[in-house]
């Protein structure tokens, strides 16, 4: 919102005031102003939450006091549009130089450094391996890239923070990574930071290609659990990079309401390519990579629903997936199904799904929910409703349907990803709402 306000103020000379809940105002006038917007937008605050409140409560909000300033809300609004500018609000030009960060920290004891790293918010509050010059140099042996090469300039949330190969190596050492993991970590670094939203999202990290075996990643039994070093450490490193170069600080730059425990490891695992049924391609091959390419793919989402028990012949897996996927938001027609190899075998050999794509198409055609349930999700409403208003189908039609009309919310089967993982000790699966991004070639970072 600050960006639109800045456009009106700066390009069109229109005095503007933003209206936001109190939790947003602190961010907008603090970090967002300093590092993203640079324009000291005036705000009036309302109590939180605003969305979903009955009209009677909103009337009280408007006639009540701004919880940040303590003044009547509408007085703050009128003042914001009419009060003369302060000297600080007239400042134009480049900001002060960024305070440089020294490459080395002052020498200290291990115990005090561990405390320092925690106090600075650089860790996940588990102990870290301290990044001595020797250890970081060892990590850099894992890549041919120069230490000062910028992998990504991280500008979300705000600012511009160059994440170099060396800074990534520092995080890799901290998380306990081996040098051979480093190319995967550098490929991951191109995706920093992880999902950051008040809605408490999380990430999923999927590795494909021969590198899975070379690194000893787990794609069999308990692949999603805490039973494998590479899975654990690679996933943890994304979190540490997001907290250092990503600049994520609780209640300062990240405002997730509940947060997500998945962010400790970011659901890092590999696909069980060896156990894919014939005709079922690994995810990276579906994306257009070669089978011999090594690829890491990061997805963002919130939820996973488990089949809990094994597949039953009388009510096969695709039917239960269909039922459970009704509970997902279907935002952008996105879902990722994680299934044990035995489920994939049954779907292919007992139920005729010759490819992952055919299963995705079936789910796209058969998962249904009411229009009111679809639009009842605020994130869907924010994004898809705006598309409906622009006339984009099918959202425009869905918006015009009566509340109890039934739609197929996963209208794009390409948004439904299927990943085979697990150890064939139970025919179970997870239906998740994770939206997988574009794969990143790990081989580019060797």
């Amino acid at each position, binding site marked *: 919102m600050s960006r*639109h306000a800045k456009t009106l103020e700066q390009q069109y000379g229109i005095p503007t005031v933003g209206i936001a809940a109190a939790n947003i105002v602190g961010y907008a006038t603090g970090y967002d102003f300093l590092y993203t917007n640079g*324009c000291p*937008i005036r705000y009036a605050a309302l109590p939180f939450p605003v969305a979903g409140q009955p009209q009677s409560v909103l009337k009280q909000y408007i006639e009540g006091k701004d919880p940040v300033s303590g003044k009547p809300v509408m007085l703050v609004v009128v003042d914001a549009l009419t009060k*003369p500018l302060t000297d600080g*609000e007239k400042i134009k030009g*480049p900001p002060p130089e960024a305070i440089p960060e020294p490459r080395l920290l002052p020498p200290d004891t291990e115990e005090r450094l561990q405390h320092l790293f925690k106090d600075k918010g650089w860790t996940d509050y588990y102990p870290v391996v301290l990044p001595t010059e020797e250890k970081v140099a060892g990590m850099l042996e894992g890549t041919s890239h120069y230490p000062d090469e910028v992998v990504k300039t991280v500008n979300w949330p705000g600012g511009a923070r160059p994440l170099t190969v060396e800074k990534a190596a520092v995080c890799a050492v901290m998380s306990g990574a081996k040098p051979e993991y480093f190319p995967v970590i550098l490929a991951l670094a191109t995706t920093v930071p992880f999902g950051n939203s008040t809605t408490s999202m999380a990430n999923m990290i999927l590795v494909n290609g021969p590198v899975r075996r070379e690194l000893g990643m787990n794609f069999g039994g308990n692949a999603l659990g805490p039973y494998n070093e590479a899975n654990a450490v690679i996933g943890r490193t994304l979190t540490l990079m997001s907290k250092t170069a990503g*600049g994520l600080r609780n209640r300062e730059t990240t405002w997730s309401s509940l947060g997500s425990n998945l962010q400790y490891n970011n659901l890092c695992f590999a696909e069980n390519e060896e156990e894919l049924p014939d005709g079922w391609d690994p995810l990276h091959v579906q994306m257009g990579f070669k089978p011999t390419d090594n690829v890491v793919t990061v997805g963002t989402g919130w939820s996973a629903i488990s089949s809990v028990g094994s597949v039953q012949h009388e009510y096969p897996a695709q039917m239960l997936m269909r039922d459970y996927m009704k509970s997902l938001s279907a935002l952008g027609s996105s879902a990722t199904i994680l299934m044990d190899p035995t489920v994939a075998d049954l779907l292919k050999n007992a139920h005729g799904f010759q490819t992952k794509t055919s299963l995705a198409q079936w789910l796209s055609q058969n998962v249904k929910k009411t229009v009111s349930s679809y639009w009842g999700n605020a994130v869907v409403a924010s994004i898809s409703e705006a598309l409906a208003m622009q006339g984009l189908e099918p959202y425009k039609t869905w918006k015009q349907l009566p509340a109890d009309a039934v739609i197929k919310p996963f209208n794009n089967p390409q948004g439904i990803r299927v990943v085979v993982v697990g150890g064939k000790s139970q025919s179970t699966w997870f239906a998740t709402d994770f939206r997988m991004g574009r794969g990143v070639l790990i081989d580019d970072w060797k």
Partner: protein
Amino acid sequence: MKKIFPLVCCLIVLVSFWAVTYTVALSGQKMPESRPVEMITVLNPAVANRMADRSPLAPRPDTLDGKTIYMIAVNWGGPQAALNVFEEMQSWFERNMPGVQTVVRLKKGGYDVDDPDLWKEISERKAAGAILGVSG
């Protein structure tokens, strides 16, 4: 005898401990020193951040009386959240500042999508101000 035996054992241990301590003290021997604390140097994980370029606010009018202000729903949490708030704001202006004309508009696209046509309309109508909302 069974009751006395533990007491005798304890006494022997205490006397032995005293004797050893006394002997060491008499001989002037020093107790072992604690090892020096090892200082280590590590790389700094922090990455320098750059602030945004500063830009000023637009000059403010003395009054809104007789002027038009726009209320723009930005589509955060769905458009209805803001429209409901603006309904109450319009009502407030009618009751308390009837000289202010209010116009409600829904910005196109999601909350982060630009809408130059709307900004242009606001500018061409010579609006005295804009209220953007609602986030949260």
